């Protein structure tokens, strides 16, 4: 199959960018989107051009490295799917695809489709952990955690930190990302002692980074590759109010 690609090209963070058109031919419908770009880049390199910079590592939807918008869909036309798990069989022969980076003030573009998501690391740094040093833990089965609670904590913990929630949000809010980590840790008995300082510090850092506020459109929940629920945001807001 073939596709007409319009790809966002931007040389650096402070340069201006624009879409450039490429004809991608001899594609296999079972190729993943990054594999299509691998093939395109080989062609570009051989004709003396600068290959499209994009990131992807595990290519199985778990590392959170990949991701760009395809025709305005964050990651993929399929909800709950990362870019690397999107295959060309999702498109029709001859389709036009516009590929552009996740856009948010707090995610500056580094080059082409590559963005800087270090703001997420700084939110975790602000309190997204349980303060236990190595070697201090007591026997694991002394703390019983009921099955459903552990499952709920896992649902929130499954976040891969890809940033799709921010990219799809009209406010570029990081509320889904931040609230998922808060739920994961604060639901568990081990994480309760720090629950109040955690929510205050993480929310403050989220604001400092320049992410917008949440207006509950629910777009993030739809697009999230790990199906993280916006009920985490409700819980975060409740915890935050209590912590004030």
């Amino acid at each position, binding site marked *: 199959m073939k596709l007409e690609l319009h790809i966002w090209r931007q040389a650096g963070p402070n340069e201006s960018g624009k879409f450039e058109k490429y004809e991608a031919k001899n594609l296999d419908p*079972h*190729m*993943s989107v*990054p*594999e299509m770009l*691998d093939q395109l880049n*080989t062609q570009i*390199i*051989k004709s*003396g051009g*600068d*290959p499209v*910079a994009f990131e*992807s*590592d*595990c*290519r*199985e*939807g*778990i*590392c959170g*490295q990949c991701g760009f918008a395809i025709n305005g869909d964050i990651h993929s036309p399929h909800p709950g799917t990362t870019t690397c*798990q999107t295959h060309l*069989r999702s498109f029709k022969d001859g389709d036009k695809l516009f590929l552009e980076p996740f856009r948010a003030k707090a995610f500056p573009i*580094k*080059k082409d489709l*590559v963005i*800087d*998501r*270090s703001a*997420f*690391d700084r939110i*975790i*740094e602000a309190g*997204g*952990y*349980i303060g*236990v040093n*190595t*070697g*201090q*833990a*007591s*026997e*694991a*089965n002394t703390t*019983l*955690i*009921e*099955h459903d609670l*552990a*499952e709920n*904590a*896992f649902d929130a*913990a*499954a976040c891969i*930190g890809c940033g799709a929630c921010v990219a799809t949000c009209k406010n570029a809010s990081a509320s889904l990302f931040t609230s998922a980590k808060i739920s*994961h840790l604060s639901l*568990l008995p*081990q994480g309760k002692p720090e629950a109040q300082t955690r929510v205050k510090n993480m929310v403050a850092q989220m604001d400092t980074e320049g992410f917008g506020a949440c207006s509950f459109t629910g777009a993030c929940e739809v697009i999230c590759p790990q199906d993280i629920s916006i009920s985490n945001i409700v819980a975060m807001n409740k915890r935050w109010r209590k912590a004030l």
Partner: protein
Amino acid sequence: MLDAKIPDGPIEEKWAKYKASAKLINPANRRKYKIVVVGTGLAGSSSAASLAELGFDVEVFTFHDSARRAHSVAAQGGVNAAKDYKNDGDSVWRMFYDTLKGGDFRAREANVYRLAECSMSLIDQAVAQGVPFAREYSGYLRNRSFGGVQVSRTFYARGQTGQQLLLGAYQSLMRQKSQGNLRLNTRHEMLDVITEEGKTKGVTVRNLDTGAISSHACDALIIASGGYGKIYYLSTLAMNCNATAIWRAHRKGAFMAAPSWTQFHPTSLPQLGSYQSKLTLMSESLRNDGRIWVPKSPDEKRPPGDIPENDRDYYLERRYPAFGNLAPRDISSRAAKERIDAGCGVGPMKNAVYLDFKDALERDGKPEIKNRYGNLFEMYRKITGMDAYEEPMMIAPSAHFSMGGLWVDYGLMSNLSGLFVLGEANFSDHGANRLGANSLLQACVDGYFIAPHTVMDFLANTEPTAKNPGENWTALAAASEKKLEEHLGKLLATKGNTTAEEFHKELGKTLYQKCGLSRNRSDMEEAHTELLRLQERFSTDLLISGKAGGINFELEKASRVEDYLEMALLIVADALQREESCGAHFREEYQTADGEALRNDEEFQYVSVWEHTGKNEHKFHKEPLHFEFAEVKERSYK
């Protein structure tokens, strides 16, 4: 010359004895020592966080854009520990023996025992960090079984155990960063080790965003850069996994051990076309409930659901009735290859076998199977577009885990003084084949529980110099930087016609065919010639676009492929010298009448160790393996 420095005494007391006699540094003096950590996977993050907690000055480098993206994140099935919560006869001794036997008696007894001994503390540690392991309705931790053992000692967090353990380690790392106890440099790749009078005294790194090259002094260096299975190009590993950090350390004098021991995972997805960049792993835990089979007849044309029981060959259950579908990975992979080579493979390229959940679905119902493996079935659907609740999965063996790596002693220090190697990057605990759910364990145990003691013991005998490295160091660092800049410039200036990725694909193809799941002398001799030719072509025909400054992914790839090309020759040499079959290393010339690996304990009960003496030149050493406590037996799963 090769002294593993194993403490004497009974095996149960060795580690306690080591810890009791290890030297300590008082808290006020620890901050005078600087430790550099390369890699932020489980081993890197856990060791960096633990050493920073102790008060050492820690600086961390990772080529990822965030520490959380390291490839530990992709491990699915679980982590082993001898807790014996199931009351099914598990113990440290049994776990030690299972691991040693799983590795076909080609690992060090003392290391393996310590791994089993520390496994219980790791579960405690991970739970305390908030890792959401699976629970029973009573609230107790839940276990399942894994290949190569007859007890249930695997702890898991759905099919994302690696991700959850890594998040625990990453969060500990970020906590130390927030307290100012360590510095974290993302998008920095280690390209050289600086040695001064035979001691490891620093690293030279490249900033992958700007291209800037800089050197950093240290009193001890920890390399935890993961495995090199990606050398086969098609593998279960992430695209950027590489051997560069360990290979550069090797070139600077660190010995490489058993590089040819690569495990092929039996439950990966098969290759579908030449465009393919990786093979996705499906967790081995699926083998708890899935049954593996192929049609009996190579001419079978019916869809799997229409093939009656009589025409199916459940070859693992047939050949290994005691372990059945839970036979260890090397054995399962080879058995699959045997059937595929016999023409009984399934799928469009006839390169796969079925993994069938029909019986489990009938027995336990869809909700329960979904509860156990839901995300894996979903992943399978996303990749293949097929529904495994309705039809069997198709799976195939794929390059996966590196049992080989840099040689280390009992304290995880290489022969280069001050260089510690942790996790998959070292050769240590798995022998010639790793058991499932032991790699997360080893990476964590190395980082949380071993390195903090052994690195401190080493530093206690070392004068701290990194804070004030002196003129000689500065000159060495400048020379290292200059050499790297010139070399990268040379790669960029080659201006040939073949991209780094095309070279990598050719390299992978040669290795798969001639030094893969099974090997023989004549194939490997051909591989040696082909690889030399490929290396030669690389030096004249490489094509990289762009320049050294700024983001240049092609330059990153080319420099890693160049190291892989050198390493591949050593892999072949290593597989050639070992004239026996053991674990994942299957030499076709050495097999039993019924096709099982034929070990030769009299001549090959050693770890092969290679010293770099020049480009493509090595000196061979042996570390003999002594079994004082476990009885060495023929490895049978029948």
